């Protein structure tokens, strides 16, 4: 039994500019849907999930890799995990200084509470910055 649970899955993460990440032999994928975090392992029933702005954690050989996924969808079918997202960033490619600056800017905007601030937009910008920072910490 343990065998079926630990034997590997194939993972493919795609953005509109092509495949960003592919891996074989993945043991577990953890992602966050709109209503909460979930994990998929081998033998999972076919599933389609709408993802939110959150890291996708890919566990392989006991190591965990975090990938920043900004919305999008996860599909698992026949032990193949496909993630399609309008924006995907690998931790290695993220500019930490820029994310820090974006975080600060968004926080200031939210704190200022003036009427001409688009709160939703600032909140989204903050979420994106936080996600970038969080993912880079996992390196």
């Amino acid at each position: 039994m343990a065998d079926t649970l630990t034997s590997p899955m194939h993972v493919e993460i795609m953005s509109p500019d092509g495949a960003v990440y592919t891996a074989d032999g993945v043991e577990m994928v953890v992602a966050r849907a709109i209503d909460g975090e979930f994990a998929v392992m081998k033998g999972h029933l076919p599933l389609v999930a709408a993802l939110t702005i959150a890291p996708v954690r890919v566990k392989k050989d006991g190591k965990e890799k975090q990938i920043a996924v900004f919305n999008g969808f996860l599909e698992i079918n026949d032990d193949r995990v496909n993630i399609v997202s309008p924006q995907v960033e690998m931790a290695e490619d993220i500019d930490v200084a820029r994310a820090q600056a974006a975080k600060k800017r968004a926080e200031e905007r939210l704190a200022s509470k003036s009427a001409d601030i688009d709160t939703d937009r600032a909140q989204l910008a903050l979420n994106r910055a936080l996600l970038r920072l969080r993912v880079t910490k996992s390196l």
Partner: protein
Amino acid sequence: MESTRDIKGRIKSVTNIQQITKAMKMVAAARLRKAEEKAAGARPYADKVGELLRRASANVTGFDSPLLRAGEVKKVGYLVISADKGLAGAYNSNVMKKIVAEISDKDRDSYKLYLCGKQSHNYLKFRGIQEDSYHFGFSDKPQAQDALELAKEMIDEFISGEVDEVYVIYTKFFTALRQQVTMTRLLPIVADAGDTASQDAADNGVQAEPEEFIFLPDANTVLTRLLPEYVQVQIYSSMLQSAASELGSRMAAMTAATDNATERIADLNLTYNKARQAQITNEISEIVGGANALE
């Protein structure tokens, strides 16, 4: 007969033109490769989103979204994708031909034009047609962000009832030498071939294949989020196809121009040599004539 000096001047100017067309050809060729890769890279993504959409809609009954609503068509929106720059052979004029064919027999208030690319804007201005919105600056290097903004605009226009249908006119890329201006419907979202097949199957009470999918959080939410994504992906891939076509056309046009210049230079060289020979012959006969007169 032109003087040798004039011909020399012309040879020089044709040579200069040739250098420019050659440079443009090489730039277009280098960028075409990248654009082609990008267009091909976007395809799996677009396919996947389409597949998810089919799957999700097959699992939901009675789902209704403003993006799917098809009603009486009073006003049509055209999203036209053309280039910012010319010198790309018939690329821009083919797009223009298509749009003119579409709108020439329509009242101005029965359609809206959303233009991308300076060429379409300039051409329509010349014909006295004012567009409803105009974007430029990304024709040969579209980014996902550009597609996102266009998708937002199209969806807003459609939902607000400004237009009842939206079509995208773009140039499909086959090879550097073969492209095709194509018009496809963006909104309301069309059930494509695969979709209708599964729809028919569902209508007949036959399940095409046992597709038991779990949806997180639920099928309605997934579908609601998939629809705008689908529109965006379609716009993005049309933009990428158009960009590859533009560069392909430019490369072909510049190759032809460079070849023509080569031919022209050879012709001019021949004329130059003839003129030079004629001049020498002339001089000799003058000298001979002069010498004869002295005897």
